[in-house]
């Protein structure tokens, strides 16, 4: 039987523009914060394994082999360390590998850190670098980018289910409200539905990016990092950490076709559904047990479709729940309490770790005033790699 595995340390930097800093320092900052949170920097000597999540420092920063660099920056030699790259799902994949390292018996304490500095290049170049995860011949070479795919996806969803551009704006308003209260978010500015959808200048303020997606339907280009310390709760080492562990109740991943056009239905995200089903089974719970969720909303349409795939809402109805404010902080099922990728930001290698950081904060009851979910028991994070072709779902529990 696998041991109980929990998170005893969590660190995060303020997301935003860190392009004047070395990506290794940006990651090490959150590692420091995680150790301080866990009880002290000396605890780094108790770590048996390190996983560093990063998508593309080789392209963004001309730096590679970040795991070795982070180890050295943190004075953690000779601790084993590996880099994990799984596109924008690198972060949650690293957490999953950390879980597996402890479950296998090879480690009792694992440090997982994720980070990305994307603003070292222009916005256009950043979009192009992220697009390299698409199929080279059949997608990337066509000139397609992730916003392009999301635009096509959104149009099809609108055609089939009656979603409107105003519905997309409502999701953005909610996410920005949440981010405005989040110390770590990139964009801590609330927006109004009048400014980005209903008002006379909305077309200018909220211009098209990839029709029908507009600027406020897409995440900003963000730098940042986050770090977590995982521990075998049944090991004597667990007692070294001052914080009560937040248990990883379920963690699972699944994949789908590399080419989006090769899916039976381009609107169905099988990898999201399958990874969530496996995580629910592992946790012994179902969608109704989830108190709040962080869903990978690089484009706000993802928040909607992922909330359907994981079983929160029937297919084609999630936006109706948004209209009724069911996913607000004080709603029936708060979604993206951190502000999500939409407003907290999306430093691709950090995002999966950051989502789980938010689950830990909420489950500990440590979120800022006005942003704390009331008495949460289970939190879910869905971290999305590629255009839904490699997805990790994590469920944390407050025991």
């Amino acid at each position, binding site marked *: 039987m696998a041991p109980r595995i929990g998170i005893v340390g969590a660190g995060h930097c303020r997301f935003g523009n860190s392009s004047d800093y070395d990506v290794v320092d940006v990651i090490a900052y959150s590692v420091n914060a995680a150790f301080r949170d866990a009880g002290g920097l000396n605890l780094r000597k108790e770590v048996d394994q390190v996983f560093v999540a990063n998508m593309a420092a080789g392209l963004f920063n001309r730096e590679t082999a970040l795991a070795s660099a982070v180890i050295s920056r943190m004075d953690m030699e000779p601790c084993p360390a590996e880099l994990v790259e799984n596109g924008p799902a690198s972060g949650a994949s690293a957490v999953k590998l950390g879980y597996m390292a402890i479950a296998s018996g090879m480690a009792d304490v694992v440090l997982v850190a994720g980070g990305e500095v994307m603003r070292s290049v222009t916005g*256009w170049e950043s979009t192009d670098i992220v697009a390299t995860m698409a199929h080279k011949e*059949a997608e990337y070479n*066509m000139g397609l980018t992730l916003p392009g795919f999301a635009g*096509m996806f959104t*149009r099809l969803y609108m055609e089939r289910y009656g979603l409107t551009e105003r519905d997309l704006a409502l999701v953005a308003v909610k996410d920005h409200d949440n981010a405005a209260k989040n110390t770590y978010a990139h964009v801590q500015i609330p927006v109004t539905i009048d400014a980005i959808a209903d008002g006379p200048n909305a077309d200018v303020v909220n211009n098209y990016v*990839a029709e029908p997606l507009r600027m406020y339907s897409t995440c900003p280009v963000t730098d940042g990092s986050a770090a977590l310390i995982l521990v075998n709760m049944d090991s004597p080492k667990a007692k070294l950490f001052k914080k009560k562990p937040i248990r990883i109740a379920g963690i699972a991943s699944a994949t789908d076709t590399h080419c*989006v056009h090769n899916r039976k239905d381009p609107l169905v995200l099988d990898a999201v559904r399958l990874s969530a089903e496996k995580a629910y089974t592992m946790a012994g719970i179902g969608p109704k047990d989830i108190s709040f969720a962080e869903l990978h909303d690089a484009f706000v349409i993802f928040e909607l479709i992922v909330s359907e795939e994981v079983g929160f809402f029937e297919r084609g109805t999630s936006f109706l729940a948004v209209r009724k404010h069911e996913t607000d902080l004080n709603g029936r099922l708060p979604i993206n309490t951190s502000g999500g990728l939409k407003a907290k930001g999306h430093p691709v290698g950090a995002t999966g770790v950051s989502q789980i950081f938010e689950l830990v904060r909420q489950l500990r009851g440590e979120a800022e005033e006005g942003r704390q979910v009331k008495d949460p028991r289970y939190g879910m994070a869905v971290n999305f790699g590629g255009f839904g072709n490699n997805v990790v779902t994590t469920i944390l529990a407050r025991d």
Partner: protein
Amino acid sequence: MVDFSVYGEQTPHISAFRCEKCGTLYYPAPMVCRKCDSIRDPTTNKGWEEFDLEGPCTLLTWTRVWNLPEGFNRKFLMFGMVEFENGLRASGRVEMVGDPQIGMKLTATTIEADERPGKPVKVFVFS
């Protein structure tokens, strides 16, 4: 004497593949047939029929992208996903005046594009 400047200069095409053992169609090329497990050797394509993917198709969805990657010196580009009459699907560029409509009939051709650094690449144009 071979004139390398014109060697290979012909109308560009994008290839699709048919597994000769079971007949399953693929675009882009697979390494293994999901139906009969036949392996495709990418250097010889032995056991696989290679054919041009082009002609009539139906538009499944589309977008107009305004934030194009580095190198694309255009205000916007339209992209679409189509389904061919043989059931294969592809993504590529849409070229027309005005807004396309989901379900409209289009014709797929191939061009060579060189917006990005490196060798020119083959690109679907649906018009």
